[in-house]
Structures are given as structure tokens and as C-alpha cells.
């Protein structure tokens, strides 16, 4: 079975010209055979200067291979420098304590591009539970691209975060005005505590006269209590088109009889649901 690291090397070899390919190969061998900290950090720093920052060109079969090598891993919007840095980190980072220590040191002196890269690499690192504290730090970031590196298209948080960390990741996404749909495991990890936090947040926004993201209701539906159903009723009664569609999707995910009754009172939305015309993906794309 091909590993994720081998796939990255294969894709880079295919895309890079000969001098760049040779540089990467040389660094990979040097780092894998053990080198000084200084050489390790410099090699990783040098990557965009040496290899550029083009998009990594991947086909659907490449993405299928990625999924097979590491379920949930989605490198579809990775770039060459990101892929190469992860290759070098995996080649020279060692395992266990040594890897954790090197990763920590890399983060300490990382620029924004590197920080994004190292967070995107989370699903590929040895000993996944070791990196939870670091990943949570990324999920607290106010720098949106850094937050998204942890939260979007990344299976790590859903696999490793406890409920509190998970719930705050979802809330933080709304706070910094990014989308929820690219968060992996969003529906599977919905829970009553998150439902309550989200409804409270919607009330804060309403009180302030600020808009509420329609996506907020996605993690409310499956665990909606009486108060949450009241909130959804309010959205149906007073919301705009996208908000009402979101309320309908949320109600459709709610197992309670009241939810079905509310939907029955909305024949147009029910018809759209039945015809498959509504989806969270479409809503997220606005």
C-alpha cells in the first residue's frame, strides 16, 4: 500500500522540472539520514524559494489514492511548497518524541505560509493524539487562513478533538465569518451542547441586529430541543430565502415529530427538499 508521503513525492516528481526534482530528492535523502537542527530548519525554510508555490496538480484518481492511503485526507487544494514541506518534515522529523519536538520547534518559528502547511499536514503525522494541543491553538487563531488550515478539508479535528474543543471550533468558524461546510465530520459530531451554544449565539446576533449565518442551523437540527424549534420557527417566519432554506434543512435532520409538522406547514420548502434541490453545500456557497 502506498503511503501518503510516497504519494506526495510521486506527485511532486511528476510536476517539478529536473533541477527542482533533484533538489527535493537531495534534501529528502539528507534529512532522512539524519542532519543537524540548523540544516533541517533551513531546508524547510528554503522550499518556496527553491520549488515555487504553484498549485499541486492532482487528478481525481490521485485524490482517490489519497483517500485510500489516509481516509479523510483531502490534498485537493494543496500547493507544491506545502506538499514538499510535509515531505521533508516526514522524511527528517523522526518519530515519537523527536517528531513532536521538531514539529513544535517548526511551529515556534513558522511564518504564515508554514503555519498553514504544518496544520494541513496534521492528518499525516505519527502519533496523532500528541498534536491536539497544537491543533487547538490553530483553531483559536484569529487569522482566518490559519484557522481554515485546521478546520477545513481536514479530518484531524473530528478524529481527535474532544467535545469542548470541537464545539469551539464550530463556533469560531462562525465568529470569523468562514463557512462550516468544509469542516469534516460536521454532522457526525453534532451534539446537544453545541446546539445550545449555537442557538444562544443566534440570539446574541438577533439582539444586536446582526445577520445570522444560515449554516448555523446545520448543527442545531439533529439535537433541537423545544427552544431550538422555537428559534427555527422564528427563522421560517421572519428569515430571508437562504435562512428559510437552512431552517428547512435543519428540520429535515431533526428526528422529532414537531419538526415534521413544522415542515408540513411549508409546502414549497418541503417540495424543494423532496426534490433534492436544497443542500448545505449549496447554502454554504451562497
Amino acid at each position: 500500500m502506498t503511503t501518503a508521503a510516497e504519494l506526495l513525492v510521486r506527485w511532486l516528481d511528476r510536476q517539478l522540472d529536473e533541477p527542482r526534482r533533484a533538489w527535493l530528492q537531495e534534501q529528502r535523502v539528507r534529512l532522512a539520514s539524519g542532519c543537524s537542527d540548523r540544516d533541517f530548519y533551513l531546508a524547510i525554510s528554503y522550499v518556496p524559494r527553491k520549488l515555487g508555490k504553484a498549485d499541486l496538480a492532482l487528478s481525481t484518481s490521485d485524490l482517490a489514492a489519497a483517500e485510500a492511503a489516509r481516509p479523510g485526507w483531502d490534498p485537493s487544494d494543496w500547493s507544491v511548497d506545502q506538499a514538499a514541506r510535509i515531505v521533508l518534515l516526514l522524511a527528517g522529523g523522526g518519530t515519537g518524541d523527536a517528531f513532536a519536538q521538531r514539529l513544535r520547534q517548526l511551529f515556534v518559528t513558522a511564518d504564515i505560509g508554514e503555519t498553514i502547511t504544518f496544520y494541513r499536514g496534521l492528518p499525516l503525522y505519527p502519533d496523532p493524539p500528541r498534536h491536539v494541543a497544537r491543533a487547538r491553538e490553530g483553531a483559536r487563531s484569529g487569522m482566518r487562513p490559519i484557522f481554515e488550515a485546521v478546520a477545513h478539508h481536514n479530518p484531524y479535528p473530528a478524529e481527535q478533538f474532544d467535545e469542548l474543543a470541537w464545539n469551539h471550533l464550530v463556533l469560531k468558524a462562525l465568529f470569523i465569518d468562514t463557512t462550516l461546510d468544509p469542516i469534516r465530520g460536521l454532522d457526525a459530531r453534532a451534539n446537544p451542547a453545541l446546539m445550545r451554544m449555537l442557538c444562544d449565539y443566534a440570539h446574541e446576533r438577533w439582539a444586536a441586529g446582526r445577520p445570522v449565518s444560515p449554516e448555523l442551523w446545520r448543527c442545531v437540527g439533529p439535537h433541537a430541543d423545544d427552544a431550538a424549534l422555537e428559534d427555527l420557527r422564528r427563522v421560517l417566519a421572519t428569515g430571508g430565502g437562504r435562512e428559510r432554506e437552512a431552517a428547512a434543512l435543519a428540520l429535515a435532520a431533526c428526528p422529532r415529530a414537531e419538526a415534521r409538522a413544522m415542515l408540513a406547514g411549508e409546502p414549497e420548502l418541503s417540495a424543494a427538499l423532496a426534490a433534492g434541490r436544497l443542500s448545505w453545500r449549496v447554502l454554504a456557497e451562497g
Partner: protein
Amino acid sequence: MYIDSHTHMISRTTDDYERMAAAGVVACIEPAFWLGQPRTHVGTYIDYLSMICGFERFRAGQFGLRHYCTVGLNSKEANNEELAEAVMEILPRFALKEGVVAIGEIGYDEQTDLEDKYFRLQIELAKELDLPVMVHTPHRDKKRGTTRSMDVVEEHGLAPSRVVIDHNNEETVREVLDRGFWAAFSIYPFTKMGNERMVEIVRAYGAERIFCDSACDWGISDPLAVPKTAELMRRGGIPETQIRKVTYENPLAAYGQSGQINEADWLDPPPIDQRTLYMGNSILRGGQEPRIADRAPRSDELRIR
């Protein structure tokens, strides 16, 4: 469009970023320096360098400015040998970060032996990593300190064209230009340069290898120094081509030698940056003329003494 090639934005507010962007500043360079008082641990130094390579860069982008930095051990803190040794150890890890356009600001404060030692070590680092150097010339014993800085650069075989000598004045400029270095002037009230004097410098020496910056920091300083000086030059009859060199083209050429600052960064940013790291620039999209104030400023409002 202007470039302010010496700004300590880490101690400035969001108002400053807004005013700079409105006045036409498209990019700024943040040299690593002290913070008004000396650091006592390498850890705070690491976090500082990380901040100017990271969050400050992001913050500037939210206001439509591109942010670059230089990294180095400054002359004041070079006098704490224990700190200096530790900083030299970690410095190479920052030197190749994205947007690092030079090793700097380095040089002399009191011209002590330790300052000399770490100045030289950092010149060697710049040579090894092929980076330009930004030299901070001392406030006290300035003329001799400036000459000595250039002597040391030459002794280490670094090309003058790779080195910016900053904080010049009327007393230092001739030698700096004659020896082939870039001559930067910090328009900083009361201590360094006033901008009426700057106009006369350009009138006397022309615009080759000369540029000005604000050096704005936590002290009484002016983040609009570059646009104000440009306007003062305009009113003083300096040709537009020279103004452009002094406030835009020359710093771009000097620090562009790093490969880390390009016009395309603000004129044609990649879509991913446009979306997340750089909130465009309404001036360049034709939305708004650069302006320093809501009305045409009076000359005394442009003057920085």
C-alpha cells in the same frame, strides 16, 4: 504609490494602517529592532520575530498594505552577550521566512566590541543566505559610526549595492553615495531628519540610490512621513520621476534583491492572498485617489521637523 521601507508597525494602531493606505502607501518594511527597552530572554525575541513575520503581516494585509520585514540582532541588545549568543543561534531560522527582505537593522549604537562582533557575524550570515543588509547608523558619534559601518561591510566583502545605510543626514550622505551604498533617510521628528531638509537633499544629490522612510515606532513619529515628504517635494518643484524613485522605486530595487518583495505582490496578488491575506487596495482599483487629509493639506501640516 509609496513604499515606507522602515516602519515599526508592531507599535502602531489600526488608524495608522488606514491612514497610510489612504495616503497611497502600498507596502511597508518592518525592521527587527528593540522595543524601547531591552529584552531579557531569547524567548521574547523569538516571539517578536515570529510576530513581525506572522501576525503583523496578516494585520497589515487586512488594511490593504503589504508587509515585509528584516530580521536581525540590533546593536543595543547586542551588548547583552548571553542574549546575543542565543539570538544568533535562532536567527537563521527566521532569515528565510516569506517576506524577509534583509538582515537588519544591524550596526552600531555605542560602537562597543560586542556590537562590532555581532554586526560582523550577521554580515556573514547575510552573505551565506544571499540576503541584503539594512544598517542602522548610530545617533551618537554618527559620522564616524557610519564610516566605520561601511568599512566593516567592505572588509567582509559584501557588495555595497546589497547594503542600505539608513538614518542618514547631510553629514553622511556624500560618503555613503560615493562608496556605492544605498542611502536611506528616516523622516523622524526632532532627532533624525526633517522633510524640508529631505527636499534639499534630493535637490542637491538627485535621486540615484536615495530614498526616505518614516521609521515610525512607539515614539513621536509619523507613519505618513513618506507621502507627506513626496507632497512637499512636489510643491518644492522636484520632478515626479525623482519623487517616484525616492519614495517607491529605490526601496523596491534595494530590498527587491532579496527576491521577497515584488510589485506584483500588490498590483497583481494571487487569488488565495486576495481572499485571505490581503484585502486588496481600493486605490489601485481606481476607487480613490491617494490622500493625506480630507482636504489639500497646508504646507505646515506636511512639514516634519
